[in-house]
């Protein structure tokens, strides 16, 4: 197998930020046409495809998953650390296993976002940077045969600006 090729993380972050920005701009244009939320879908679908591809790549030669919980665990551990260099901090699941909450206290892709001073609540501004990761997770899960909805939440308190949690609701 060819040696792993790597890329500077800064490049990735710049690219990512620019991606979100550009789609936001596109939204602004589309806004008067009425479909203002197009970018959300676009970003998610991009994430979805990337997630699928990465899922394929990261599970090569790995024993097949037996059930959903294993898949989620894989996402929390290997998948997360492949992409974000760390594991998910907390994994909450409810009783009948249809709902998983992946909480990351220092979400890597939010590290370098700093809010303008006058802005108190970061949720609005940051939310759009979590659309792509949602698609990422969703794509990976779906390629493992787990159909689900993924939504993200940002912690309200300003002390932990980079804390966020992803809610995976398995259909």
């Amino acid at each position, binding site marked *: 197998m060819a040696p792993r090729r790597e890329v500077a993380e800064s490049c990735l972050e710049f690219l990512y930020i620019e991606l979100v920005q550009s789609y936001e701009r596109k939204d602004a244009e589309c806004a008067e046409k009425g479909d203002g939320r197009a970018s959300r879908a676009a970003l998610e679908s991009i994430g979805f495809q990337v997630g699928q591809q990465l899922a*394929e790549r990261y599970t090569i030669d790995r024993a097949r998953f037996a059930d959903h919980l294993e898949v989620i665990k894989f996402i929390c551990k290997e998948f997360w650390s492949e992409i974000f260099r760390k594991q998910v901090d907390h994994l909450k699941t409810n009783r009948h296993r249809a709902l998983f909450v992946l909480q990351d206290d220092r979400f890597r892709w939010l590290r370098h976002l700093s809010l303008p001073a006058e802005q108190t609540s970061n949720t609005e501004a940051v939310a759009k940077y979590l659309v792509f990761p949602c698609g990422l997770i969703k794509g990976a899960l779906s390629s493992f045969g787990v159909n689900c909805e993924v939504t993200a939440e940002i912690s309200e308190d300003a002390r932990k600006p980079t804390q966020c949690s992803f809610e995976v609701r398995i259909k």
Partner: protein
Amino acid sequence: MIVCAAVVGPSYNPLHLQTFALDDDPLKYHYIVHCALDVIDERLSPPSPRSRGAGGNDPCLGYLYSTEDFKVYGYVSNTHVKFLLVLDDPETKDVRELFHRFHSAYIDAVSNPFQLPGHSITSRSFEARLRALASS
């Protein structure tokens, strides 16, 4: 040697089928591969218990079945993509290693942004890599 290599999607739709035999009438191999899916189904169901290690969850299924003059080997990735190799020589070499290369070739192929997920793969480089695989 390997006479045919095939990739079959999660919904049992053929994604790629390539033959290396001289008299390549692909039709025959389509039939053979299609048949092999039955065996794969059998192997995969019932969902094996959550046993770690190289238990029932080993992606490499190994030997599936044999026709008059071929042996068919199988490999199922975590994403339910099925890889099949049709060999025509009786002695079985290390298919695991073959499948590993096969799978990574596939991964690179589907990482191509122009490759629509779920559509058949028509990438030249992918075919070239499989040819290399077959000739090795």
